[in-house]
């Protein structure tokens, strides 16, 4: 069986679908091991952006939803 290094150093046009799947599996295994050892893993899926909207007026949001951009031909 080819190692990941062998596959990564092969002309990609000569790789078969099973070869690609082997590469994917190898990196997924690395990801799994990394997540096991990383206390932060999985805890940062999204960063809240509520502060971005803190100065927006409700009416302006309504206008946005209703469209009304100027200058469009």
């Amino acid at each position, binding site marked *: 069986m080819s190692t990941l290094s062998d596959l990564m150093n092969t002309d990609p046009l000569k790789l078969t679908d099973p070869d*690609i799947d082997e590469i994917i599996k190898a990196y997924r295994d690395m990801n799994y091991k990394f997540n096991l050892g990383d206390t*932060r893993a999985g805890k940062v899926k*999204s960063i809240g952006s509520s502060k971005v909207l803190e100065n927006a*007026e409700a009416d*302006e949001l309504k206008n946005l939803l*209703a469209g009304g951009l100027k200058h469009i031909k």
Partner: protein
Amino acid sequence: MNPESYDEDGVQWAWDSTSLKRADACQRLYYYQNILGWEPQGQSVHLWFGGIYASALELYHKLVAQGSTREEAIREAVKSALITSWDFEKNEATFFDDQNKNRDTLIRTIIWYFEFFKEEVYHTYITADGTPAVEFSFQLPVDNNVTFCGHADRIVVEDATGELFTHDQKTTKSTLGPYFFKKYKPDIQFAMYTFAGQAIYHAPVKGVVVDAAQVAVGFSRYARAPVLFIEAELNEWYDEMMELIKRTRENTRRGHFPRTPASCNNFGGCPFREVCSRPPSVRENFLRGDFKKVPRWDPVKAR
């Protein structure tokens, strides 16, 4: 209309965010890169890495929208990245002397992205005629014989709210946190994506959802956040871009492109800083010695 982005007098009429950012940062930078076509020797690892990464993810979304299974689409995305990052002349993997951004970390970052965002909360927007809004390339005529050009990955719908966003990918070596996303407001590119998305799809696109990937030596980490723009902000951005384009066009007609020293040290330093630091009489020599000539930047063809 001239198929290139410049008229017969060399004045630019088609503007993408890259052109606007250059003109905004420094008129001389714009002159050297857009008008004259000077580029630093060698290839930027950041552009190389980011370009292949974004293309792989875009391919994935396109295939899923066309009916491929998730695993089929991932396989094709990875295969595409492997091919694009291979040097067929030398019959070896493209090499960059960068411990963070190289072919190994590129493929890892792509595959780990799909693991991290396995539970997707945004899906590709389907237009009224049933077309998935992927490979979102636009040419949007606006005022003053200006056309805005650009290319975004896709328009997405947030499952929980039904709100629309443009979707974009960024890679960085830096640790991700709220500060990373704050730098995108104000931002020329994201404002343009939002503006164009609303105009072209006649839909209330609220901003850009950014998927950020930190690429470290031994791991990749991810974060996602929306960058929002309200109508007043987009109109302000529009007016500022019209003024910037007007000023740049006037400078082009006059052949006069003043430098902005305050920008020389931004983003790791302007590539032309050494040129501008020399007396005017010898700058051409330094350009010829340290840079390569490429066709001038053409937003109409940029993708």
